[in-house]
């Protein structure tokens, strides 16, 4: 992740400057104001860069594509590091243990704990995506041969129906998926339906039984309100910004990747329209929410751009396979070849991107845990942590 290191370098420089200036109490206030403003500006810049480079198609970083999400995670890590530099480093514990931070910080830390479960759920979701990838690879392996025979088409059809079934599994239960699969299933016999069920089960997520991604996100959103009045110029502001960024990123991940129980995820969480740093995030939020609304009714496995495309291509490949007759028409064959090529290209993207993305999620996990620990130490030192243990 070259982008990350580069950015870290730039604000690490700022930290050392900060520390020196904290030593001299004169002008600390001005310096602090400047730091806070810079932090806001940087957050705004990062997201507006992300928004402006988001492409409509897969030629670049399409919204909620793997590469886009990886950039989002990078930006998150940068925001997080800068946040720590502004709020925590070189600061006297008493400063962040007094109102309103004595309440706001524990709330943020509570959101952090909740985000850890989201990280785990998303990492598991990415494993499920890897499963889809393998099914897609079977389709490619089956159809990418010349001459194409009945047997290969059958093989592809089987994998495709499992793929589609797995993708539609989540919200519409497996009624539709199983049915579809059965119509293609070669044999039922003594273990009828085992085929599709197994494939679907291989997508199963190992979170706690009652755990719900949407509930988790909603819980993270609660109490999230922009600081008002005098508070809005103090440290309450970066804490609020960081909370918002955290919630936004987790929300986007859950929307993109297969996750346990996501009913009602499309709900907007309020972002402050009047604040400039929030504008690009609002733009992204609206785009994602719109996508979610389109797909929610259908029931889907997630908005991950690659999966969406895979589903679309999968449908047309199924159509091809269903009407396949040997020898195939050249025109249809050419169209199919094009689709298979795109399928292969998506598989390649998944192959290259999913693993690093899982590592990034893990990195996010580590980083927020570390920050939380550091904040807790400071709050404990100040001895004013009144919130219940989280």
């Amino acid at each position: 992740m070259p982008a990350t290191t580069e950015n870290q370098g730039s604000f690490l420089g700022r930290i050392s400057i900060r520390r020196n200036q904290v030593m001299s109490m004169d002008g600390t206030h001005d310096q602090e104001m400047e730091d806070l403003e810079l932090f806001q500006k940087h957050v705004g810049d990062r997201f507006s860069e992300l928004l402006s480079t988001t492409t409509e198609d897969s030629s670049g970083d399409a919204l909620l594509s793997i590469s886009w999400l990886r950039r989002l995670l990078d930006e998150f890590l940068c925001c997080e590091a800068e946040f720590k530099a502004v709020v925590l480093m070189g600061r006297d514990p008493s400063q962040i243990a007094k109102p309103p931070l004595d309440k706001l910080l524990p709330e943020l830390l509570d959101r952090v704990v909740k985000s850890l479960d989201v990280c785990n759920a998303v990492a598991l979701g990415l494993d499920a995506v890897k499963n889809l990838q393998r099914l897609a690879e079977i389709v490619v392996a089956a159809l990418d041969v010349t001459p194409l025979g009945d047997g290969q088409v059958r093989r592809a059809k089987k994998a495709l129906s499992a793929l589609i079934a797995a993708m539609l599994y989540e919200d519409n239960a497996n009624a539709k998926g199983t049915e579809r699969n059965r119509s293609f299933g070669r044999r039922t016999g003594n273990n009828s339906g085992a085929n599709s069920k197994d494939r679907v089960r291989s997508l199963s997520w190992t979170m706690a039984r009652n755990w719900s991604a949407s509930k988790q996100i909603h819980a993270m959103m609660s109490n999230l309100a922009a600081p008002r009045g005098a508070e809005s110029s103090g440290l309450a502001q970066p804490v609020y910004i960081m909370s918002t960024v955290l919630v936004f990123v987790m929300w986007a991940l859950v929307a993109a990747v297969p996750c346990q129980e996501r009913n009602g995820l499309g709900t907007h969480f309020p972002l402050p329209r009047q604040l400039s740093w929030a504008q690009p995030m609002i733009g992204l939020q609206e785009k994602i929410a719109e996508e979610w609304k389109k797909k929610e009714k259908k029931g889907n496995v997630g908005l991950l751009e690659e999966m969406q495309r895979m589903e679309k291509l999968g449908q047309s490949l199924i159509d091809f396979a269903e009407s396949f007759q040997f020898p195939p028409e050249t025109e249809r064959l050419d169209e199919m070849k094009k689709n298979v090529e795109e399928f292969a290209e998506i598989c390649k993207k998944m192959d290259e991107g999913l693993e690093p993305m899982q590592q990034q999620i893990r990195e996010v996990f580590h980083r927020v845990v570390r920050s939380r620990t550091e904040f807790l130490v400071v709050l404990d030192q100040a001895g004013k942590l009144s919130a219940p243990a989280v």
Partner: protein
Amino acid sequence: MERRSETLLITITTQTQVSSFLLVSSFHISHFLLPQTPTFSTPFSFSIIRTKQISFFFFFSLSLSLCLRPLITFMMESLPLETAEKIILRWDSTASEDARDKMIFSGDRDESDLYLQAVDEIQRSLSSVSVSEKVNSAIQIAMARLEDEFRNILISHTNPFDPTTEDEASLTLDPPSSSSSPKHPDNDENDEVSQTSLLRFNSDGAASSVTGSYRSTSSIREIDLIPCDAVYDLRCIAERMVSSGYLRECIQVYGSVRKSSVDASFRKLGIEKLSIGDVQRLQWEQLENKIRRWIRAAKVCVRTLFASEKKLCEQIFDGVGTSIDDACFMETVKGPAIQLFNFAEAISISRRSPEKLFKILDLHDALTELMPDIDVVFDSKSSESIRVQAAEILSRLGEAARGILSEFENAVLKEPSRVPVPGGTIHPLTRYVMNYISLISDYKVTLNELIVSKPSTGSRYSGDPGIPDLDLSEFEEKTPLDVHLIWIIVILQFNLDGKSKHYKDASLAHLFVMNNVHYIVQKVRGSPELREMIGDDYLKKLTGKFRQAATSYQRATWVRVLYCLRDEGLHVSGGFSSGVSRNALRERFKAFNAMFEEVHRTQAVWLIPDSQLREELRISISEKLIPAYRSFLGRFRSHIESGRHPENYIKYNVEDLEDAVLDFFEGVAVSQHLRRRSE
């Protein structure tokens, strides 16, 4: 191409199944098949296999001995391509009802062997130049069929692993199912083979420990999850699926069936699915139980459940294709492994507080102990993430332990209770801290590894009057943990000194310090571990401190009392014959009596819980008080007795005082006034 030929070679020499290659080879079959014993080291077969293949080869030739099949029965001269195609089509389940309802591998052995042979024949014909669409289609039909057969064999051998049998010390390596396996050779041989295969699966150094103690829970101990004849069938199918490019289907089917089996085993082991949020919400007492259970479950999971899954993958897939065994293994256990470790991770990031230290250390110890086995079971590149996660959790648990220790130090320093304990006895804080420290000494081995820096004391905080000073240079040769313990005792004393100031009576304050420091000393002396860690030098200092407190107490109380018994001020110059002022003398006796009564009354309620210390202090008091009183009485008794109402002034004789001192520090109020024995 070279690799392929090797694989084929293995097929010839090890499989009892007849491969097509064998049929076309010019060798006479009986040459190959004569040696059927486990010592199967025909020079022919080994000489051409490269070294890295040998372990596999060795293993497989051994498992062959478990799964010997009738050989010659299937030695057909050849299988014409048309016949092969017919066999494949006969079993096309889209074509016939019969084919759909019956499974090849659960039926007649001959039929499954024939089917495999047919597949081999078709596969071989595919490599020839002109491939008809018919042959092409046949292989796809065969593969779909084999996938179903593969799934069916896996499903019919899915018995969740039963942890209750695992807990028994008398566990044997034979899985329950092996007795029902009809083609099993006799048991002696089986034992030998199983042990050898254990050796093989831990070939990187861990082997020696495995062979020695595989029956205990302290090391990897695989069981056979699927009987060997079924493993053999699975392997035969897997080979053909992989060589026909159906690797992904194979992994997919394998993973989905085995994963649900692992899930079922997890349920049997009582491994709960708890989110990090759940763990943070639970009471610590509940979590302590869960930690205990987790440690037990984790050992079984890593050493038996996961290790057995790995072994199974190797038995079926090793050598079939590049790292297929790893892929299948991870497909099966990645989710469960993450779920398992998730709990330990959640504990490692829970809020730090002193009571959590020892359970966290237990967890840390358990995981440390498991680490070598985790490294063995998850040794492949694809399972790196699991290994890394376990290591991360371990380091976070260590960090938590360090954090808790410093949290504890902070808590001891800041423990805020201001109400003095009655009677100057041992403060609950002292007991708590000392018990805590002894527990720390029980965990010395682990903590010595974790605590690598000495406490930040002295110079750094010297400006702060709220923190005691400790000169670390005195403890150069001590381990950081030792210094932390000493530091905790220093902090404790510092806090106790502060608390002693809340006593209105200075004597009681000294007694309180004496009692508490004495308790510290006793606690340290009572534990050889602790004594060694704290060291005799510092112990001497502590002893000096409570002795000093005892002296200070005596000064504070008894100097005043004994002052009444001095000679000065009693003699009047040039007055009466004796030169002693009776009035002054009477006042002195009255003052002494009053003071002694007061001290007796108050200090009988004070408490020195340690009987020896109590005794010593009383003796020390008597040694000063009694001779002084006796001599005072001796010198001046006559002056009082010659006057009126001597009993008003000399209320006590020496024995009375000796008895009265015995009432001191018992923590019991004396009910009546000081008794006079002389009456």
